[in-house]
């Protein structure tokens, strides 16, 4: 965590940039960011593409099956464009991906893109709920722990953080299912909606909370939320670990800075110092931490969904892995991966603007 330092310009008169250059600077930043982002996406696409071609499984064979004739096999090869040189294939792959064609899933028989469109919202819903809970608790815990080092709050924060870092997510999910569903019957079983609502709530947006609310059926929203609690808690704990630890570290670092001493010398209370003086200085850091945690929750969802039979893209992916459904695996990886990259890139951009506003 970099402490906030000031650029001291010795010449008072020229200490401000001419206003008209500011616009260009911002534009330059945006363009550089865009270039970086595009390059990374391209890299991701390249990696996924290479995996299709390097795979031992022959995509044409997968498509027509083992008992097909030579001619249909050849036709399949042609249709998939496998006869062209590799760079051309890559370009066609990119072209297809851009127009929303990610191939055909071998197991479901549907276009991969529509499969993903069906399942991705569920994952987003889960991850978003988890990050909201995780961020609120994590930030609060981290701040409190930094304000009272050595206290029981601090101890709890450290234990929770350590546990969250060390525990295998899938195992925790299993245990929670065991405890809260099987034993205590507090939480409903796996899945997103109870049996009652599964057929009466129409998937309009793909976000169960919204759909349940739109359906107007009494108890639907509550049912959705009840199903959401357990998997979201598992993921929230995962996010909590990192967020609380990094927040605690950031606040502690700032507490050692000179400007905090100044504030104390003025008679400011610890609460005021933390919330009025320190938080604005670490806002960028905290934003980064939460955003990165959100991105890693997308990865974590892959596992959690399997355990809770949550019909999101994670479960789609793991099912595809077991079935050896290469197009589906790669399509899902590309989509989730791109989202991941996008989140990272947006965070960089946002932080860049936040920093710029303060120190020149």
């Amino acid at each position, binding site marked *: 965590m970099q402490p*906030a*330092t*000031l*650029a*001291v*310009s*010795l*010449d*008072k008169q020229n*200490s*401000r940039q001419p206003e008209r250059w500011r616009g260009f600077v911002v534009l330059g930043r945006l363009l550089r960011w865009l270039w970086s982002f595009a390059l990374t996406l391209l890299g991701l696409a390249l990696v996924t593409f290479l995996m299709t071609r390097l795979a031992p499984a022959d995509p044409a064979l997968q498509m027509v099956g083992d008992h097909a004739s030579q001619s249909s096999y050849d036709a399949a090869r042609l249709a998939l464009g496998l006869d062209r040189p590799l760079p051309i294939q890559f370009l066609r792959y990119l072209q297809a991906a851009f127009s929303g064609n990610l191939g055909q899933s071998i197991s479901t028989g549907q276009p991969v893109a529509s499969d993903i469109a069906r399942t991705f919202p569920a994952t987003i819903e889960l991850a978003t709920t988890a990050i909201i809970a995780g961020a609120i608790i994590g930030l609060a815990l981290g701040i409190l722990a930094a304000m009272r080092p050595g206290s029981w709050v601090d101890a709890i924060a450290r234990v929770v953080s350590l546990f969250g870092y060390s525990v295998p997510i899938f195992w925790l999910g299993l245990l929670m299912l065991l405890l809260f569903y099987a034993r205590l019957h507090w939480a409903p079983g796996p899945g997103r909606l109870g049996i009652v609502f599964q057929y009466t709530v129409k998937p309009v947006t793909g976000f169960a909370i919204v759909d349940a609310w739109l359906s107007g059926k009494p108890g639907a929203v509550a049912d959705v939320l009840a199903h959401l609690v357990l998997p979201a808690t598992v993921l929230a704990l995962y996010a909590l670990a990192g967020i609380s630890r990094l927040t605690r570290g950031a606040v502690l670092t700032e507490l050692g*800075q*000179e*400007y905090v*001493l*100044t*504030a*104390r*010398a*003025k*008679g*400011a*209370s*610890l609460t005021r110092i933390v919330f009025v*003086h320190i938080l*604005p*200085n670490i806002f960028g850091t905290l934003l980064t931490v939460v955003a990165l945690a959100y991105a890693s929750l997308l990865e974590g969802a892959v596992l959690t969904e399997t355990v809770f039979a949550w019909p999101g893209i994670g479960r789609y992916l793991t099912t595809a892995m077991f079935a050896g459904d290469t197009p589906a695996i790669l399509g899902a990886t590309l989509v989730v991966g791109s989202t991941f990259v996008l989140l990272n890139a947006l965070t960089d951009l946002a932080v860049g603007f936040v920093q710029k506003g*303060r*120190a*020149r």
Partner: protein
Amino acid sequence: MAEPLLDVQNLTIAFPSDGGPIDVVKSISFGVGREIVAVVGESGSGKSMTGRAIMGLLPPHAKVRAETMRFDGVDLQTLRPAQWNRLRGDGIGLILQDPKFSLNPAHRIGRQIEETLLLHTKLSAGERRDRALEMMDKVGLADPKRVYDSYPAALSGGMGQRVMIAAMLINRPKLIIADEPTSALDHDLQEQILLLLRSLVEEFGMAMMLISHDLQQVARYADRVIVMRQGEIVDRLPAASLAEAKSPYTRGLWAARPSATTYGTRLPVIDDEDAT
């Protein structure tokens, strides 16, 4: 001398270490009245620690013990955190060394200057702003309105230190502790800032504890001088008498100052045996 505003008797500050507690300030006693008292010493003499101790700003693992530590009739050793917060910024102020680090980079200047007013008075926002602008003018900041809305990053070192002074003096504390207020500045600026400090202190009728390592500097701006060395007070004398100092250490410090006459010659070195 009148009843001292600050009365310190046998103050000891110790820090824990692997080999047991180490005394960085060893049972010192002094008083400050409505005057400018300079506390001078080399790095590690304990002068800054003393200043911090009087404000209760030492880290929690520091052990501060004193027979007496009273400010304006209040026993500082019995104060609880909330009481300290009321005293700091109101009764006692602290000016730190380097505005590059001591100002909050995320707050505008005006806000930082007004903060003590916000914390300790019931003035309205408009009144606070008026006082701030007035104070900024007093400390010699050109174009106060523009600086009011600026961030610390836009300021030079000299401007920043003026802001620091304005922020700490705006609420007219009774005692101001200036911890090496000019050490981060250019030589010419140092004179200006010290002059400014002294005139404000006199105008507001405050007491000042000027902590410094520069003996010749304090000679011109202080009334009395306390010389510290390795945690102990080795000399006290009026600033006017520095040239005729009796203590060998003080004489050594005084003689070691570079000037036009000493240019090109070897400066005297202080041996450990000299300070007795």
